[in-house]
């Protein structure tokens, strides 16, 4: 089983990636049972908030994003295995999140790294966004 997973997972990831690259012109009808409340919430979000052109478009976009995340994470995990020094720590990720978002604290990476070091002691599963919030709160209280 372990051997099978190790050998087959990269091929599966590659195949998922290929399928995601194909254009979306060819479609299929599908019957999925989803919670009624979720369906109704999606219909409201589309109809009243205009978050997507249709509930189908909303569902498709969410599914695509999730599958792309799965592929990217598998590729990154394999890369970390071969190049351990490339694996970012929580401080690196907090800085990257701030940079991508254009957050003002992106200009203070050392403050973010300190906040990451503080928060990870009590919350080992903290996310980069948790670090940003923590660093922001510390900056406000210090002002």
């Amino acid at each position, binding site marked *: 089983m372990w051997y099978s997973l190790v050998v087959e997972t990269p091929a599966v990831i590659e195949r998922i990636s290929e399928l995601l690259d194909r254009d979306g012109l060819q479609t299929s009808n599908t019957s999925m049972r989803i919670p009624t409340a979720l369906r109704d919430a999606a219909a409201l979000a589309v109809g009243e908030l205009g978050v997507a052109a249709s509930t189908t478009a909303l569902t498709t976009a*969410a599914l695509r*994003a999730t599958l792309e*995340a799965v592929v990217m994470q598998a590729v990154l995990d394999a890369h970390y295995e071969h190049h351990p020094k490339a694996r*970012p720590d929580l401080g690196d990720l907090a800085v990257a999140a701030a940079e*991508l*978002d254009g957050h003002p604290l992106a200009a203070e990476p050392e403050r973010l790294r300190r906040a990451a070091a503080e928060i990870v002691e009590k919350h080992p599963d903290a996310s980069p966004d948790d670090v940003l919030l923590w660093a922001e709160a510390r900056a406000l209280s210090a002002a």
Partner: protein
Amino acid sequence: MSWIVVLDNEAVQAVQNPAHPKHRQMVSLAQVVASRKRRAVSVEVAVPTAVRVEAGWDRTSPAWVFPNRLRITDVPLDTARASTAAAIRHRIGVSVADAHLGAVIQSTSAGQQITVVTSDPGDIRLVAGDRDMTVVAI
């Protein structure tokens, strides 16, 4: 709102080469993008094809397997972007790759959030015109 993250030549080089001094920074950015996608954020990482040429990124080469697998999409130099890029290059005198990058920035829709990862923020601000964007310096 959709979000596009565009890479310049140096950013591409840094992703590809684990020995590049900015490799870990680029991997961190990719990791954050993957986390955002997992939360169903509509975010796409893209590379203008002229940037890919300048960087030597051949998608058929085994040397580029890691960037190939990171779901970084090509933005082609189509007719409209070629005209915009030509005007940018004529006006500012930047490289073809940077002019294409500027055309990509300028062709994004008003509602689209754009982030550019670059080693030359000054040039990118020049080619972007008055388009509002976030610049990540590497």
